[in-house]
């Protein structure tokens, strides 16, 4: 009875997971485990497996015992891998160093017990000597070329995702001088980019003009609330007047889009899945033989 109820829980979880994935409500993998209901169901499942394990011991059913043990190992390794995994995307300009803080990452997924990757490195070059899809990082004085294949970085892994140009935006007013001067890490090769500064009430929309002289012609729009204050072309270094202020794109520099991940217990999880599959097949074969 307990074993059947546990099987029902497992099948129900499998069914609803498939429905959610097929409908596009969640992506398969860690995102599924982010759902509170899936975690709750996992707890129920763990309880059911432990109860089934005790029942198997009392009834001296070897097949059920093996199945329950394999299922429990699979559940535990999945929990461990989920809690300690880390996936993150970040961008570094040439000369910038990685810092293991949440603000370093633009997006990602972090297990509840996973630390931010503690590696220490500096990005020195993006696409060195014109080699596309590569960047150079320096760790403890040793330079390493990374590409789109995952490479070891301490206990984590890193890979190069792409390169982009960050424009240097300068906003100044006659009375207050320079109000903002920062490289904005937006990828202008992906078309028009929208960005804001915390200190200013403006929204900037910037894209590269395709027919510029060289690569230095941009299309800039500056908005405030519902109003468009400036909408036109601007060359590199040109100051445009916007509501008593001046906005210019003074420079641009290359930056790299990187991905870092930490995968703990993944091999154990895969081994547990294989073990469970083998035990389940053997159990079915044995039942048919009887």
């Amino acid at each position: 009875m307990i074993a059947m109820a546990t099987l029902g829980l497992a099948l129900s979880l499998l069914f609803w997971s498939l429905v959610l994935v097929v409908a596009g409500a969640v992506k398969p993998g860690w995102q599924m485990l982010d759902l509170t209901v899936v975690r709750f169901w996992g707890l129920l499942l763990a309880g059911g497996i432990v109860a089934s394990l005790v029942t198997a011991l009392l009834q001296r059913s070897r097949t059920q015992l093996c199945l329950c043990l394999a299922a429990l190992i699979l559940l535990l390794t999945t929990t461990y891998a989920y809690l300690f995994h880390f996936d993150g995307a970040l961008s570094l300009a040439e000369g910038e160093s990685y810092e293991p803080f949440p603000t370093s990452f633009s997006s990602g997924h972090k297990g509840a017990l996973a630390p931010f990757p503690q590696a220490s490195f500096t990005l020195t070059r993006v696409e060195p000597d014109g080699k596309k899809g590569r960047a150079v990082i320096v760790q403890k004085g040793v330079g390493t070329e990374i590409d789109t294949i995952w490479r070891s970085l301490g206990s984590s892994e890193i890979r190069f995702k792409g390169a982009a140009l960050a424009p240097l935006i300068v906003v100044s007013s006659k009375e207050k001088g320079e109000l903002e001067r920062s490289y904005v890490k937006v990828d202008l090769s992906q078309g028009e980019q929208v960005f804001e500064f915390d200190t200013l009430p403006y929204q900037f929309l910037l894209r590269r003009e395709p027919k510029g002289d060289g690569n230095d012609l941009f299309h800039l729009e500056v908005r405030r609330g519902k109003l468009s204050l400036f909408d036109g072309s601007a060359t590199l270094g040109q100051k445009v007047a916007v509501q008593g202020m001046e906005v210019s794109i003074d420079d641009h520099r290359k930056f790299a889009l990187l991905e870092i991940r930490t995968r703990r217990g993944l091999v154990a999880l895969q081994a547990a899945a294989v073990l469970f599959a083998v035990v389940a097949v053997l159990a079915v074969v044995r039942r048919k033989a009887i």
Partner: protein
Amino acid sequence: MIPLALFPLASVACGDAAYLRYLLARAVPSLGESDRIKVAVTEFNNRFMDIYASQGDKRGIGAVPATVAMRHSLVTDAGSLWIGGQVLVYDIASLDFRSVKQDGPLSATVLVKEEWNYQYKDGKTYKEVGQVHGTGALMRYRLVQQGGKWLVQACEPVRGSDKGVKKGA
């Protein structure tokens, strides 16, 4: 069969009802979240208008259906206008919803053709500074669902619209 039926109930109890509603909307489009999303965008714009019409009074900012970052952006804008000695008064002329698309259980994108009238007023005397102008734009709103409510996360113009065209009141 019981665990199969219990899962949706557990979803609701665990606060994951949005996922079930999304599944339902995929099966029966009329049960979608379109109306709630439209209400959130309309409410956002009404509150936006109130903040400016009340001379930058930010007391109602907590009620704006927007994420914290978006609300901070509104405060920065209204605050800096006040500091500059002027307030900007907006008035919605029309909000025409062109499309409402739920990208996932917790996210949606809305395209709205907006028409606004606006005028600057003196921050102290509240006297009009300049004329009433009109502006229109096709805006893209990105919304997220948090705590069962739809909140505006980002708002940006869509290219190809007749933005910034001065039309008068």
